[in-house]
């Protein structure tokens, strides 16, 4: 009898330790096959994050991490549907701007009192990072980065146009000056001055927003839409003058605009921090197109500096904390692991959130890092709103209508004003 009891106990212990706690993980950033578990060598967002996840899966005792499909376009629709169906991933990435939408209905677990126990030191986070994951004074996530729009510069084209001084690109300080620079580039090289995705994702919106913020305005204030303004007209005019003169092509989507820049067909590409390491790697290749690559802070064309910025953060659904404490602990450990690899994630070009990382020599030594140190100070976004995604879509639709279909600025701004006001009123 004794033997049987012992045997049974031993078996139970064996069984429980053998069954790893499985944590499902939802993310975007795209797919990376064969990312491996070495977090220090991967290149590009998709592969760096996947290598960190693979390493967590391999190194965390008794935890296995299962990455769900990584599609960009429908990520939030999918997450919303998963929450509604009661099957959200155990941990998932999201943007700071989505926190109000999820937190206002209590979908995100309150991590405030559990982070220290999991080995996450919140006092090491930059104040802005802490703010990004805080809702009603509670911490609902673990921040992973600050990201922002930068100007990616082809130095060969700039030099040919005489727009280089002391090894740095000369950037415009007004819309008029931007036109002069654009003309100089076109005359000297025959190439476009500026490229960006003005036709697909809301990158054009973010450029326009930055120019609106640079004039001290915004697109809504509390519950009132403030889109149809002189500031918005100035911002739009600054861009359409480039399109009208043939110095920029608004019809390129994300992939095409990036390809145009990498082919050496545009002096400047407006895109985020997430591609710095990728472009640096492309420029290093010994081929046609982009060769000398530098990064610059988004220039100030109006009164004050501003560029669009956001943060990627990781969250845990509240039902997991309430219903499955063991898996919740495992999920926290995954978040702690990601937090520990902040330096690896920063290799993408994103700005780190941990002071210990920001002050490290490794961080300072990352390629091009010194070229956009000013970005942290001019980082901006629209006010928090549960309707952020829908508002971005309205702006993207109406701005694209202006530069792709010739819709009048008056009509587009009036429509955007009505649509955003409707969204704020709902």
């Amino acid at each position, binding site marked *: 009898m004794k033997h049987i009891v012992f045997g049974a106990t031993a078996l139970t212990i064996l069984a429980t330790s053998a069954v790893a706690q499985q944590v499902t993980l939802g993310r975007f950033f795209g797919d990376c096959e064969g990312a491996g578990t070495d977090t220090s060598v991967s290149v590009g967002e998709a592969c760096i994050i996947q290598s960190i996840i693979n390493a967590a899966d391999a190194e965390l005792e008794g935890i296995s991490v299962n990455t769900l499909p990584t599609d960009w376009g429908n990520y939030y629709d999918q997450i919303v549907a998963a929450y509604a169906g009661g099957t959200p991933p155990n941990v998932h990435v999201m943007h700071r701007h989505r926190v109000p939408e999820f937190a206002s209905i209590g979908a995100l677990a309150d991590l405030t009192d559990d982070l220290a126990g999991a080995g996450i030191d919140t006092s090491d986070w930059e104040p802005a990072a802490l703010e990004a994951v805080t809702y009603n004074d509670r911490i609902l996530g673990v921040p992973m980065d600050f990201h922002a729009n930068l100007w990616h510069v082809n130095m060969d084209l700039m030099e040919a146009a005489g727009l280089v001084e002391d090894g740095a690109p000369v950037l415009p300080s007004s819309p008029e000056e931007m036109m002069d620079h654009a003309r100089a580039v076109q005359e000297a090289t025959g190439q476009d001055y500026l490229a960006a995705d003005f036709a697909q994702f809301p990158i054009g919106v973010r450029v326009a927003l930055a120019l609106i913020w640079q004039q001290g305005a915004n697109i809504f204030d509390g519950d009132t839409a403030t889109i149809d303004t002189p500031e918005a007209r100035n911002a739009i005019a600054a861009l359409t003058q480039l399109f009208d003169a043939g110095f920029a092509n608004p*019809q390129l*989507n994300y992939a095409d605009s990036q390809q145009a820049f990498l082919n050496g067909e545009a002096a400047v590409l407006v895109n985020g921090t997430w591609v710095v390491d990728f472009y640096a790697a492309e420029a290093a290749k010994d081929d046609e197109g982009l060769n000398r690559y530098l990064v610059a802070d988004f220039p100030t064309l109006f009164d004050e500096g501003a560029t669009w910025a956001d943060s990627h953060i990781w969250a845990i659904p509240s039902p997991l904390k309430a219903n499955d404490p063991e898996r919740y602990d495992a999920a926290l450990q995954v978040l702690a692991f990601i937090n520990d690899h902040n330096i690896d994630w920063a290799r993408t070009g994103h700005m780190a959130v941990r002071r210990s990382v920001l002050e490290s020599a490794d961080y300072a030594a990352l390629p091009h890092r010194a070229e956009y140190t000013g970005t942290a100070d001019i980082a901006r976004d629209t006010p928090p709103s549960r309707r952020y995604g829908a508002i971005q879509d309205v702006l993207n639709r109406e701005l694209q209508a202006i530069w792709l279909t*010739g819709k009048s600025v008056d009509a587009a701004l009036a429509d955007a004003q009505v649509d955003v006001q409707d969204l704020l009123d709902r």
Partner: protein
Amino acid sequence: MPRHQGARLALSQRQAAIILLLPFLAVYAVFLVYPFFKGVWISLHDWNLMAVAFNPDAKSYVGLRNYERVMWGQNITWAAWASPGFQIIGVLGMLASAFLYRTGRAGKVTALAMGIAALLLFVLPGFHPGEGGRWFDRRFWPTVGNTILFVGLAVPGVTITAMLLAAALDGETRAKAVLRTLFFLSQVLSVTVVTLIWQIMFSPRQGLIANLTELFGGSPIVWLTAEGFAMAAIVIATIWWSLGIAMILFLAGIQDISKDLYEAGALDNATGAKAFWYITLPNLKRTITLVVVLQIILHFQVFGQSHLMTGGGPNDTTQVLVRYIYQTAFRDSELGRASAMAVFLFVIMGGFSILQFVLGREKDE
């Protein structure tokens, strides 16, 4: 035991039918009837998808307000020529159906159905916001219009192409069999693959079409972001994608036509195009009706092509109804409103299903 056997045999035909139908009816009730009525019920509520998931009491009954918010507006008035394009087609349609009925070329039911459709086309576009008025949702009706335009282009496109292909590929030779398989092959692809292929085809930088236009000295068209071409682009992709089934139906229809007719026609010098026009086409009337109605119902549900290729743009020109429903439900979490739109879509498709049913029953004149 024998008595048992006897009892079993005593099942009436009706009882047996019910027992045999039961599994189907159960599945049908649980997965189709129940969700449908639940959808209608949701459409009568202010229902936030996420909020209700976390708190079942977060919904509130609002009656028909979702329908009003989606379809109606402030100060809506009606005028005969508010939207002349559609309304003139409506008037012409009514005249045509009366003419066809009078001259005996269309049956009573066909003429009536056509007449009602034309009347709706005349009446519905006449509503517009009057002085100082506005639609509550300014994007809903344009989206419906885009969907109808899509159907109006894709259905004839698919039908005519499939019919011509079927006529050309009917026969026993090996080459024709191979070609039939090839043309059907696109049908088995998923919408993601189809849209991926066509996004590359249409790409102004690397696309086949752009390369061809450049070869002939033209500058490439940016299909997916140009206002005049975006809808054409998704229609072309759709025709390529959904050709297969229609072609198979036409092949079956063509093979049903008696060879005697062609022989008799050949004696009267009717071969090739002439035979197609005077023999094949009239005998395919029922198949054409079937294909057209099936395609209409299918293409009203267009989603993937618009969502994946153009994102509804530029300037909403390719925004279609199902994509709007999807965004309202899953991006905006407004399930009540989305359900109201879905019920509207159901009414349209229900109308065409009834039409199909009626036309299918009509006796050949």
